[in-house]
């Protein structure tokens, strides 16, 4: 019963009949949806509705665990994500997690280019310098840390650490940035800085954001997905979904009756 309100032309991500199960239990049931390019798309829903599970399937993080099985397809720019190596895929789809997780043994500089370093990709110092500066400028951290690039990343505040993690994801110039509740561990001011950042970033990237905070989804997303008990209940432009949802379950969630 998916009400796809929007007819997306040339979607960046196309999810077709995707199902994900943990052992026997289906956590995500037959989701079909297109994600529009250069937008912030929010996936919202109550705890346990499958939104994080869906997000993590997009960069095949589930392959870390043996008991998780995926069925169905997901296409990135028309290419099946299972037809490419996970390494290639994850360079096109960066991920930012709920708790900021800069590598504790690396400096800020090294953290930004960690994707290159850890993969053994050799780059000239000049190139690396450019990547570091560009990524840190993109996340509005450059001015704050440019004089302490060689200090460890763990000395930054929570909000700065999270922005560093975003910079790290941006270093590969991915096409999509997947974010799993990126501000739920941050204080309100850090949250609002990150939110402003996302709105700016969508010019060059497509952002898919899982959030349990309806107000956040309402504030910054262009399109929203509402998931409930593993199903995709509704999908459409945020401004319509928050004032005039189509499905009664969406209505109940927004007015606080479920979740």
């Amino acid at each position: 019963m998916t009400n796809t309100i929007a007819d997306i032309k040339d979607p960046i991500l196309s999810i077709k009949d995707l199902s994900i199960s943990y052992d026997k239990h289906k956590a995500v049931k037959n989701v079909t949806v297109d994600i529009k390019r250069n937008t912030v798309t929010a996936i919202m829903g109550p705890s346990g509705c499958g939104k994080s599970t869906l997000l993590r399937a997009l960069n095949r993080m589930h392959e870390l665990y043996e008991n998780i099985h995926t069925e169905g397809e997901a296409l990135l720019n028309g290419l099946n994500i299972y037809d490419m190596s996970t390494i290639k895929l994850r360079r096109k789809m960066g991920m930012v997690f709920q708790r900021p997780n800069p590598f504790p043994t690396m400096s800020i500089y090294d953290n930004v280019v960690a994707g290159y370093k850890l993969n053994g990709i050799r780059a000239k110092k000049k190139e690396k310098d450019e990547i570091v500066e560009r990524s840190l400028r993109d996340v509005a951290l450059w001015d704050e840390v440019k004089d302490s690039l060689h200090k460890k990343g763990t000395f930054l505040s929570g909000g700065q650490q999270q922005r560093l993690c975003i910079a790290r994801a941006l270093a590969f110039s991915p096409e999509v940035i997947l974010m799993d509740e990126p501000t739920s561990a941050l204080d309100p001011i850090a949250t609002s800085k990150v939110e402003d950042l996302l709105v700016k970033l969508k010019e060059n990237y497509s952002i898919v954001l899982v959030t349990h905070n309806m107000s956040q989804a309402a504030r910054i997303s262009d399109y929203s997905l509402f998931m409930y008990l593993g199903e995709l209940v509704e999908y459409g432009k945020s401004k319509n979904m928050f004032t005039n949802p189509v499905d009664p379950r969406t209505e109940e969630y927004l007015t606080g009756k479920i979740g």
Partner: protein
Amino acid sequence: MTIKKDDAINHIQADFESLANLVLEQLDQMEGVITTGKISVSEDVVKKILKNEKELDKKEVKLSDKIVNAIVLYQPMASELRWVIACYRILISLERIGDYVVNIINFVDKIKTPEIYDKLHEVLANMTIQSIKMVRESLLSFLNDDREIAIWTIKNDLVFDEINKKLLKKLLSKTDTADANKHLLMSIVTIKEMMSNIERIADHASNIAEAAIYSIDGKDIRHHKIEK
């Protein structure tokens, strides 16, 4: 965890219903006056209506406030948001209805020619009863989420407008006077209509200004006398 929000919305609904009932009471009083067909209104009735009007004004300001608070504090969404906003819109209309009641009562007092009033009082009474019915039904359509009644009211209004136009012409044709006078009367009435509309424009300008002051200072000065 929506107790506070649900409470707030329930309070708004209770206040709204009480305010709506007050307006309906005003309308009933007015209906009473018009159906008697007399051009004098009893002191008691006037007093009652003015007292109610004052109370209505107070309630209106309070309810507006509650609605604004509910929006900022509880961020209602979807149908709850729409309900609260609709409530606010209706509030404005109810205030205007209240004003019209007071005006109409005052006009009755000003009629110097009871005969003509007598001739037309049946028509006026019907119109009054119909429009009051429309108000009652439309309020019910809001409070009971009844789409049909809402649609009926809107359709009825169109019919109403038609009747209104024809009525005036009929009124004039029934008067016992020369044609030239009839034209004169028509013109005066038309000009009076224009003046009323112009006056309403000025009125709205004043409303806009009151809203500006609300925006700047957070004070709702509707129905208050401006001191400074």
